[in-house]
């Protein structure tokens, strides 16, 4: 009997200790320890990826399709679809509201973008908290770079939203909203600090082209100052106090100049001379061998080997994309596939989505309205016809048609021209039968240096130059032109703009009115996700004085569309944000 009792007690003890309630994750894909380098890499990866699987399967965000949840795709869509640069055919959730300027705080894309920004910011905050107090050089350098990445996210929040939650540390406390001015001031201070931070790599001295250096801080400062009136004196109200003794255009000009002359970055295919705009284009065609297709310098910026063909020297911030190692539905694949259908010449991807074509209004910046519908050329012929290497467009069956994107043409991929600047080809591509822009031999199949024939063939290697030095030329031109009361023949401004035109083998412009300025921004930067910002700076996006119209632009005068509202889901989750949307008319 006694033995049984002992057994009983023993069993009970066994049961008590057998399975402790302190379980630790068993999943080999997760870890409970902070790995500094891996999280640092993740901070960068948020720009080029949407999750831990690629292209989908382990997404960073909830409540939005993972393919759409990409940083690049969302900010691109929300800056382009509402502008004069183009329209998406598919009726993805929330898109119709974006392209007709009738979005509300429940728009899914706005929620997705906002959630993406705050995911990235929280990640950066967490990295900074976890590395607080580090003294080794590598970590200090990483910390400075992560601060820069956070600043980039906050920059886009500043640009696209109005008053937003401001948070620099991870905590369960719900963040308070920051006014646009306060956010501007914080960003300015942060970028000024980073520009002088001894831990950040000096401009042009980075060893890894996918990491940021000092020039990135100059770049952000340049943008902040050029758009200062929009961010600081917005039509949306709350003009409390002025900043005296300060001219934003001088600051923008100086940072632009610094970037052009001191940063070490250079325009691809252009050698700068003594003063800005006094250089000359490099004839890359000379480097062409008999069996290689020639691609213009401008085209090379957006190709599969743009991290190696020299174009990387123009990219102040470059987002990595690779067929094998870095796939996302919102990066290279998106910009290469969306604009093409299977009838286009090889693009370096075997897939096409046929859903994005440009607005007729954008086509008319290049060619007269009456002529546009008579042209049917591919993207290799169009730059020759329009005498500008940047006109990487194709018109397939528009001949004789009315160029239109709405009504019966809403789902017609050929109703307007296609903009094809991004492709996945390598600029060392071997030619075969297709005519290149100089009428030489051509290509018949997608050329690859190396790729597998199946699966990977859909994924272009094209990196995304998020910040290009060309912007410093445009900014320099616009800043001196504005400083000179928009003098149409300001020589410095003309020289800077013509530098970009020279590089593109286009004739110089001789007069700069507002419309020319806006068109030059479009011609240089179309489909790079910044059109909305430029239109707003010229007062032509929405608001009282806007006169420009384009198809789909429905609520032009309503100033609330100058910014996106805080998503209703976050207003519900964070009582500090109550009433902010109402204050700006949402």
């Amino acid at each position, binding site marked *: 009997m006694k033995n049984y009792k002992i057994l009983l007690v023993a069993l009970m003890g066994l049961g008590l200790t057998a399975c402790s*309630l302190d379980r*630790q994750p068993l999943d080999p894909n997760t870890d409970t320890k902070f790995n500094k380098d891996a*999280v640092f890499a993740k901070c960068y990866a948020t720009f080029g990826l949407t999750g831990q699987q690629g292209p989908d399967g382990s997404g960073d965000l909830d409540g939005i399709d993972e393919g759409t949840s990409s940083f690049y795709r969302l900010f691109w869509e929300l800056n382009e679809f509402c502008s004069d640069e183009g329209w998406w055919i598919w009726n993805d*959730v929330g898109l119709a509201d974006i392209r007709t300027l009738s979005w509300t705080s429940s728009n*899914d894309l706005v929620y997705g973008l906002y959630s993406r920004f705050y995911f990235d910011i929280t990640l950066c905050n967490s990295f900074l908290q976890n590395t607080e107090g580090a003294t080794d050089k590598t970590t200090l350098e990483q910390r400075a770079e992560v601060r820069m990445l956070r600043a980039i996210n906050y920059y886009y929040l500043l640009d696209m939203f109005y008053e937003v939650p401001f948070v620099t540390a*991870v905590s369960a406390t719900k963040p308070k909203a920051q006014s646009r001015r306060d956010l501007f001031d914080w960003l300015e201070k942060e970028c000024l600090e980073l520009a002088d931070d001894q831990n950040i790599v000096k401009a042009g001295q980075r060893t890894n082209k996918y990491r940021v250096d000092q020039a990135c801080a100059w770049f952000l400062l340049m943008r902040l100052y050029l758009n200062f009136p929009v961010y600081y004196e917005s039509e949306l109200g709350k003009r409390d106090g002025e900043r005296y003794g300060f001219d934003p255009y001088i600051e923008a000009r100086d940072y632009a100049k610094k970037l052009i002359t001191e940063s070490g970055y250079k325009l691809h295919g252009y050698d700068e001379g003594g003063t800005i705009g006094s250089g000359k284009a490099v004839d890359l065609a000379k480097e062409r061998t008999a069996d290689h297709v020639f691609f213009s310098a401008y085209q090379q910026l957006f190709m599969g080997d743009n991290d190696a063909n020299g174009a990387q020297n123009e990219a102040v911030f470059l987002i990595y994309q690779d067929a094998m190692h870095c796939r996302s539905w919102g990066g290279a694949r998106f910009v290469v596939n969306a604009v093409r259908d299977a009838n286009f010449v090889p693009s370096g991807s075997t897939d096409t989505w046929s859903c994005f074509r440009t607005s007729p209004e954008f086509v008319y910046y290049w060619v007269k309205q009456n002529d546009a519908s008579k042209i049917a050329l591919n993207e290799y012929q169009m730059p020759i016809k329009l005498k500008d290497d940047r006109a990487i467009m194709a018109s397939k069956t528009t001949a004789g048609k009315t160029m239109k994107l709405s009504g019966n043409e809403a789902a017609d991929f050929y109703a307007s021209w296609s903009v094809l600047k991004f492709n996945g080809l390598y600029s060392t591509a071997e030619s075969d039968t297709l005519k290149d822009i100089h009428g030489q031999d051509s290509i018949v199949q997608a050329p690859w240096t190396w790729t597998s024939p199946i699966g990977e063939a859909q994924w272009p290697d094209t990196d995304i130059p998020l910040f290009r030095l060309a912007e410093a030329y445009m900014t320099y031109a616009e800043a001196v032109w504005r400083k000179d009361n928009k003098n149409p023949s300001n020589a410095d401004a003309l020289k800077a703009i013509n530098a970009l035109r020279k590089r593109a083998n286009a004739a110089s412009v001789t007069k700069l009115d507002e419309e020319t300025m806006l068109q030059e921004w479009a011609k240089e930067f179309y489909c790079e996700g910044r059109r909305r910002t430029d239109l707003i700076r010229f007062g032509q996006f929405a608001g009282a004085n806007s006169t420009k119209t384009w198809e789909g632009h429905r609520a032009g005068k309503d100033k609330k569309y100058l910014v996106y509202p805080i998503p*209703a889901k976050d207003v*519900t989750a964070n009582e500090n944000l109550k009433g902010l949307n109402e204050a700006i008319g949402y």
Partner: protein
Amino acid sequence: MTTYPAYSYDNHYYGWDGWSDESKYNLQFSTYIMYGHDWEPQKQHFDAMIGFENQYFYRHTSNEGCGYYRETNTLTDPEGNPLAGQPYNVSKGEWATDNALQSFYGRINWNGWNQVLVTATFRADGSSRFAKKNSEGKNARWGLFPSVAIGWKINETFMKHITAVNDLKLRIGYGITGQQDLGLDYYYIPTYTWTQENSHAFYPVLEGSQGENDLWAGTDANGNNVYMTARPGVYNTDLTWEKTYTSNIGIDYAFLNNRINGSIDYYHRRTKDLLSNVNVSAGSNFRNQMMGNIGDLYNQGVEFSINAVLIDRKHFKWDLGYNIAWNENKITRLLEDDPDYFVSCGGISSGTGNFVKVHKVGEAAGSFFVYETKKMTDADGNTRYYVVDRNGDGQINQSDKYIYKNPVAPVTMGLQTKFQFYGFDLGITMRASIGNYMYNDVLASNLQWVEPDKVYQNQNGGYHSVLTTAYNCYYGDNMRSNQMGWVSQDGTIKGQAVGSNDQGSFSEWYASDFFVEDASFLRIDNITLGYSFNKSKISGRAYVTVSNPCVFTRYKGLDPEVNGGIDNNIYPRSMTTVAGLSLNF
């Protein structure tokens, strides 16, 4: 013309070669001690028990697979090795999880004079899914769940001499139960998710190659080294048991030789720390949604049942049973005190991540939260549905949504009856649910495909089929997804919308009350007709049973009975007929 790319993602020339493996096991250890005693003369019984239980659940899955390059393939990898016959598109995955529960429990029963029954129980449950200490240093892991129930057989007392009463019992109870079934383990622990094995999610911002950097994952075509990344995951240290406090009082009765019997009950259930997914305030955690204890709610109701033997003759017998229940449900507290605060739930398939239900203080849990629509005819004689500007601010936005009905029926009823006439028998059971509403997600998600410019889809290779209900809704009822204008509250048309979304039609048409339909129903669950016989040498029974023969409802979807009130492509209940014959020799 549809053009397929030469090589699609899953175009595997030699097929796909792969396996997956899932293993799971559960361990349970349980031990208890019982003690019991009877006092015969006093007619008293007492027993007690205490015990301990330990449960452990383990899951592990892994898979691996690939296709192969053709033997004739001439390509080489970056090192120059031929790829012919080599695997490509290799996928590999592994996943594992576990959780454990510990419980201490006890029970006391006392039965006095065959009249009074008292049961008291006690449980302390610990779940590995919750933190030992939450962010305030308090226990989140262990929950205490006592209960007590008293039964009093009144008919055994002073009423003993009233023979017409066969049974009369009063029941009173109070108890707490807990819920920890999140479907997620380790949710309170901060974790990092690595780039998955054999994935395409690497990034080139570190230094070093194989041997120098553990995170190194390869080199790309242009010579860039790529690395693994780690993503911090969302976590909630404060997550704890959802607890339900139930009080109930009831009476069981039986009269007239048990020919009439039944029960009546009243209950009040308060649920505290309701577990649900909730939007995270941006910037405060590593994801935009997370699991949390979001608030409190209560349910209360009355249930009544009666069974009667109406006719009881030798060759004719008729039984009838009827029950009716009334339930009320209301959210009493949520995370925020703000009266406008709500937690979304009830995901739908239109769009991505959209919800049509909410938890809101003062409303039933999971009430529909939608836009109001009005059917109106405009000056040109076109009849369309319009969305109503409920708050009258001259625009349509989130704040025009309103609480409209909920998926839980306030009243449910059941009826069972059985006739026996000589050898024949006929039994019918039926059920009714009154006042439950359903979001017709099938209709809502299919409606837009009827739109003229979407019936033909260039990128999808031509015309596609549409749902008849959706077609009738679009053209018959004129609920046009792409032609929805808006009206002020007094019914003045403010925003005309004809044409397409691009011309300003209301784009959240799917989140409107139009799709919230009355799903009250009366369902015949079962009809059985049989004949039994009993001869000297042979006996047996022949019968036909029809299960689920019909349902009477105004709901337009396939089935008015869908858990949660979102009808999203459910598999409908089938009607089954069974004919049988059984013989005994």
